[in-house]
Every structure is written in C-alpha cells, then in structure tokens.
C-alpha cells in the first residue's frame, strides 16, 4: 500500500494506475543449489509486493505500459537471502486484430535493483523481453516469452547473464478455475553450491569431485553450513503446473509446483512449491 501512496501523484497525470498486490509463501527444497549429497538445504520464503502500471495509447490496438514494482522477501531460516527489490518496466503491446482470439505481441525492457541481507548477493539487473500471446478459445490461452538479461538479480538460484525462453498454457474451464502448465529453458550463468570445510589451507569442498569444476568460486556464509559456490555456465530446464481459483473478480489464489533441472558439469535439481494470492484494484 505504501507503493500505491507514493505513486498516486504520478498516476493522476496518466491513464491509471492499474494496481496489483501479491503475497506468497514459497518452499524451495534446494536453496543451496547443491547436487545430491553435497549439502542440499531447503528454505521457506514469505514475500509481498505491489505493482502499479500506467497505460498509454500507442495508437490502434497498441498499448504502452509503464510500471513500477516493489517486492519484499523474507527467507527462513537463512536471513542472508532476505531481500527487497524495486524496478521499472516499459512494455509495448500490440494486438494484431480485434476480438478475444486475436494474437498479441509484446516487447519491452525492465530492470531491478535487489538488495540482499547478504550484501554479496545484491545486484542490479537489466533485461529485454519479447513475447506472443494467443487465446485459442475462451478457455485456452498460450503465452510465449523470451528474455535476455545481463544479470539474474531477483533469483537467489542464478547469477550472471542468461537467456530464457518460456511458455505458459492456461486452461480456464470456467470463470473460477485456472489450470496452468509451464515449461522453460534457460541458458547462462548458474551457481552450484558445495558444502565445505575449513582446512589449514582455507575453505575446501567436502566432495572431491568439485575440484573438477573450473569456474570461479567463493566461500558463502549465508547458510547454516559453510558452502563453496561455483559459478558455471549451464542450461536449466523447468516445468511446472499450477491450480488457481479466482476469489471474486479481482483476486486469485495460486498453488503451483515447478521443477528446475540444471544440467552441465554440476547438475542439480530444485523443486519449488508456491502458494500465492494476487489482487488487483
């Protein structure tokens, strides 16, 4: 709500604001990005955020959307992952025809400043994105989106530059229920964690196989155990499903599961269960 108050004067000079708030509870079973046997630790995260968007007419069937988001996440039991994020977004959206089944294309840029309680994780991200949205029937809609960024600031899982392609298929059997399946592919920098111990010569991974990794590494004190994080380039496949009942016209609750499978020299798997609520004003 503080976000809304701050943005109200801007909104008075634009079309909007279109405002939405979200709150979520997330269980990530591998917050350390560790391979099996190398120190997998799970973590709960509680989050809340708000987005205010302004809509400008860019001409026939074209919208220009500008928005500002602010989010807060508190991670238990690893306070180093607590973070706040703010970021603007500029998006151009064009519907190629009229009617609910007309495809829409969109593209834009966004950015985020993320400050973690663990200062080494704080960073800024800038990204470009583009996508395509198609409603096949009143019940079925596909959204495909590509994204490239210099840094994955929002995710504690990844860091460094990356490109991502994702698809979302929504099925709404009626006005209340939505079932979603998602799939994604990401190529770029990742961070793999290895449980470590302190030897006379310094921090070393418990798993001797980690020595085969050639990427840069550093000691991480974020977790309840010491870790060495290796930065490697890898591909990640993700796939998930969610169920989302609407609670009235402007609110929905979503329970979703997503599995991330990172390949490469140090493969690891992360499962995420997310319960969230979204409300738009």
């Amino acid at each position, binding site marked *: 709500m503080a976000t809304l108050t701050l943005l109200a004067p801007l909104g008075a000079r634009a*079309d*909007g604001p*279109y405002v*939405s708030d*979200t709150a*979520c509870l997330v269980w990530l079973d591998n917050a350390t990005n560790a391979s099996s046997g190398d120190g997998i630790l799970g973590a709960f995260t509680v989050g809340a*955020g708000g987005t205010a*968007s302004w*809509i400008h*007419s860019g*001409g*026939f*069937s074209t*919208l220009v*959307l500008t928005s500002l988001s602010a989010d807060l996440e508190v991670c238990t039991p690893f306070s180093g992952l607590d973070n706040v994020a703010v970021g603007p977004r500029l*998006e151009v*959206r064009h*519907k190629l025809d*009229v*009617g*609910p089944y*007309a495809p*829409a294309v969109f593209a834009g840029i966004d950015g985020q400043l993320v400050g973690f309680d663990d200062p080494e994780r704080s960073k800024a991200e800038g990204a470009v994105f583009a996508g395509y*949205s198609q*409603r096949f029937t*009143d*019940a079925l*809609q596909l*959204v495909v989106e590509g994204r490239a960024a210099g840094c994955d600031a929002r995710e504690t899982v990844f860091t460094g530059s990356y490109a991502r392609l994702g698809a979302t298929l929504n099925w*709404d059997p*009626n*006005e*209340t229920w*939505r079932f979603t399946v998602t799939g994604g592919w990401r190529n770029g920098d990742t961070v793999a964690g290895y449980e470590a111990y302190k030897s006379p010569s310094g921090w070393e991974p418990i798993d001797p196989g980690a020595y085969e990794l050639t990427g840069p590494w550093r000691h991480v004190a974020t977790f309840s155990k010491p870790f060495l994080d290796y930065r490697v380039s890898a591909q990640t496949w993700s796939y998930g499903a969610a169920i*989302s009942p*609407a*609670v*009235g*016209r*402007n*609110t*929905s*609750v*979503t329970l979703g599961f997503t599995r991330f499978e990172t390949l490469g020299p140090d493969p690891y798997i992360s499962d995420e269960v*997310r319960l*969230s*609520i*979204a*409300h*738009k004003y």
Partner: protein
Amino acid sequence: MNRLLAAALLAATALCAHAAGIVRVVTKDASGNPVADAVAYAVALDGTPQVHPPSKPVAIVQKDQEFQTYVTPVVVGTRVVFPNKDNVQHHVYSVSPAKKFEIPLYIGESSASILFDRPGPVTLGCNIHDWMVAYVFVLSTPYFAKTGTDGVADISGLPQGRYRLEVWHPRLAAKVERELVVAESGDSTQVVSVTLRPDRRIRRAPDAGGADYK
C-alpha cells in the same frame, strides 16, 4: 357540446385500449428459474409496422472494466454511444455480421455514436479486456421488451392482430417462437420456456505475479 366532446374522448380512449394490448412474457429456464436479459419481441404477420429510432443515442456505459448493460435491445436506425467511465482506456469493437465497428482506445465519451442499421444480434467486446462482453439486439419491429431479474417482459402497444412471438438471449440454445393473436380484448400472458447454454465468460481474475493485459 362539452358532453359530446367528453363522450367522444372516452370512446377514443376505449378504442385505443383495445387497439394496444400488453403481452406479458414470462421466461423460465429448464429448471423453472426466471431468465433475465432475454429480449421478447413480436413480429407482425399482417403488415410491417414502422420503427421509430430514438432521437437521442442510447448509452452503453463501461464501468469497473465491464459493460454496465449486458443486453440492450434497440430498433434499426438507433445510434449508440459507449461512455467509458473507467480510469483505464477501452477499445470497444464488434465483429458481428449485423454490425462491424471498433472505437480505438479512448477514455471518457466516445468520439462518435455508432449507427445500428441492420437487424440481428451484435456482440460487443473490449480489445484490451477480453472478459468484457455485452450484446446489442437490433430489431426491425417496434414491439419488444427485455426481461428483468424476475424473467418478465411486458410488450406494450400491440395493435390487434396476428404476430410471431420470439425470444432471444445471448445463451439461447434453440430458437424460441410461437404464433400470437392479440385479440380485441387486449392483454395476455405468455409463459415461455427457454434452454440456455452454460454461462461462459473469459476469466478476469489476475495471475499471481503475472502481468496483466495478456
């Protein structure tokens, strides 16, 4: 003289009452529940009565990102305006055969009224908010009425004669019509059963963390 005039007025009034009956149409669905937003209309089988569109445009207001009137019956030749009372822009359109038009993104009053010059159902939408839907039903008969939440519509001003009574609803599964005779004695009640398809609306609730206007 005054008595004569009064008698003549009384006779004329009585004649008009006989010549203009009211047909009450009571609509019910398969479960016996009243059907709101159905258009009941009578098509004259003996002659073609003229329709007189209103001199001022009919308004279909958009508010809370919905059309405020779900079904609007009008006669051929009626102009309709689409005031947008939201704080976001709308892009009203129709791709229906009876009327194709679009009013690109606007807020406040629409720039021009739309002339509905052919009979038939017209589905309205917003090209930004896909869940917004409403209907204009364009009629070539002056004898029509829309049912309220009680499922009742009173068609008034019907001269004596033969008619085809029809009922239209956006979710009507099968055509409903019957012959109707308006007698000299005037008013009548018609109970009409209609079969409706399920109410299918595009969901408008937001996604958690997702962008809007997809």
